[in-house]
């Protein structure tokens, strides 16, 4: 993929909840870029603003100030339905609690994003099987989540995020509910997907030891980025009209 804009770009983004005395600044002037092919970890204590940042990155939420661009598009200017379409076509989600549909087979869970893309049933099934194979669960396709271990459930969730070939795989505490052996298994899977398939991954975590697996760690504190991590080799600045005046980080 050769594109000349960042997957994710924050320009003095702030998010303020409430007003007046009850005002809460969840994000306070954040600048941030995530380039294609990166695997970044977003770290910080709870209340540091990392979850708010993730919601904005995932196009689930919009900033109250500044500009957030996803693949060069100003998401703040979009309608809720347009953001849903961005998620549908470009974002894959992996959640801490797996969030699979109960009493629905692994295969059907993985097929779900493709169903919303109106992919024909047969192709849906083939691609879902391929995604399950990519996470090593081809033999568990017909099992319901309750028949799978936590690690297996999370791999199904990763397969579901992968199946639509997203520009960005967004993982919110993907190992939070797993023991350390399963943690390593999932992290290795994510690293492999990043390296072999070139999928851009942003992962929110509060576990510092997971930083070892990723290419960059972005650290949040009190709604600000206190450490953007070691930057990847510089790229030419974006030339997309939508994102014209902008200072390179």
């Amino acid at each position, binding site marked *: 993929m050769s594109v000349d804009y960042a997957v994710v770009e924050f320009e003095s983004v702030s998010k303020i909840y409430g007003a007046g005395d009850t005002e809460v600044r969840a994000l306070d002037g954040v600048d941030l870029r995530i380039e294609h092919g990166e695997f970044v970890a977003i770290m910080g204590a709870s209340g540091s603003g990392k979850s708010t940042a993730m919601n904005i990155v995932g196009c689930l*939420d919009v900033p109250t100030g500044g500009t957030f661009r996803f693949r060069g598009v100003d998401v703040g200017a979009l309608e809720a*339905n347009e953001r849903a379409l961005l998620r*549908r076509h470009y974002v894959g989600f992996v959640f801490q609690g797996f969030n699979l549909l109960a009493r629905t087979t692994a295969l059907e869970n993985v097929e*779900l994003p493709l169903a*919303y893309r109106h992919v024909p049933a047969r192709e849906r099934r083939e691609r879902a099987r391929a995604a399950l194979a990519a996470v090593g669960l081809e033999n568990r396709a017909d099992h319901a989540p309750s028949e799978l271990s936590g690690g297996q459930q999370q791999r199904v969730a990763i397969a579901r995020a992968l199946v639509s070939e997203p520009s960005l795989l967004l993982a919110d505490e993907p190992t939070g509910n797993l023991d350390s052996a399963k943690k390593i298994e999932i992290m290795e899977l994510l690293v492999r997907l990043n390296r072999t398939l070139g999928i851009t991954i942003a992962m929110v975590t509060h576990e510092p030891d997971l930083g070892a697996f990723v290419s960059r760690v972005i650290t949040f504190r009190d709604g600000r980025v206190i450490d953007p991590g070691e930057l990847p080799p510089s790229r030419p600045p974006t030339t997309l009209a939508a994102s014209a005046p902008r200072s390179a980080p």
Partner: protein
Amino acid sequence: MILLSLVMALREIRRNALRSFLTMLGIVIGVGAVIALVTIGQGATTKVQADIGKLGNNLLIVTPGGMRRSSGFAAAKAFEKEDIEAIQSDVLGVERIAPTVSRQALAVWGNKNWRTSITGTTSVYLDVRGYEVNQGRKPSEAEFASGQPICVIGATTAKELFGTADPVGASVRVDKLSCEVIGVLAAKGQSGMGQDQDDVVLMPLRAVQRRLAGNNDVGAIYISVESSRSTTLVRDRIDALLRDRRRIAPADESDFSVRDMKEIAEALSSATGALTGLLGAIAGVSLLVGGIGIMNIMLVNVTERTREIGIRLAIGALASEVLLQFLVEAVVLSMFGGILGIALGLVASYFATSSLGLPFALMPEILMLSFGFSALIGVLFGYLPAHKAARLNPIEALRHE
């Protein structure tokens, strides 16, 4: 998109088979009740119309005693033989005329007795009332005219007095009069007014007058009108004639009434029709309650599946797609309920009408109507929960425990 929603809805309904069934039960019972009650009511209306139709629409019944008398019992003066003759000869349009005199009496045969209605009349009566003789024979006009002690008995009377024995030729004692049974009438069932028309003994008029009543009074008079004549016109003429003969001043109310079978038929049909409408409306209320039941369960469903909705929204479902999914689920549930309800209603009304002896008068439009109505209820009562689901914020929905 509809197809996808339909597939998802069917999957969800199958997954929660028991709950889905309980949810649609309200609609099943509502639709079933509407169909059963309307069909039974329609059967009753049809039966009433058919029964009255058998009597003929051109029948007038003249009875002594006014409809709204206040001056007491003596006013119900009986008719006389001369009144019959006057009607027959003076009123244009009268086809046949059957004077009757009726009383309750005890009929005895062997060691059995049965209290029944004894009617003395002429052979014309059998024709205008539509009685057929199916055992023995019909008495001739001459036998009726002579006043011989003979009788034909109704099916109920035959059963009660004779059981399985053959009544024809037997001698039955009615009060102090002994008479020979020469025929048994074919069963007619209940009249439109709910009387058993088979619980009768018919005798020559003069036999009853002389031997049982001891006078020459005539009670009700049955008159068939020539089919080319207006029954209303003939009725008015008879009314005027009898008022004159009975010397009723123009300002006074009549002490007799002339009723037109057609009017009675219309009154009865409209009464049973109104009753059918009322029953249908009550059943419709239960259909409405069924709809509220669906709304209730769908609201619980949305709350229970908040996380699922969050997942779908995060994955890229549009609010309209979530709305459609839940709406389709409610509509499919209520339409399934409608189909089951139609089946229930058909079975119930079939058995009810056959056990009540009513015709199974199914109106196809009531099937279509109640099915359409159940689908409409699905849309109406499914919309609110579906709207609630579609308006969820994905972030909060995902956080929901």
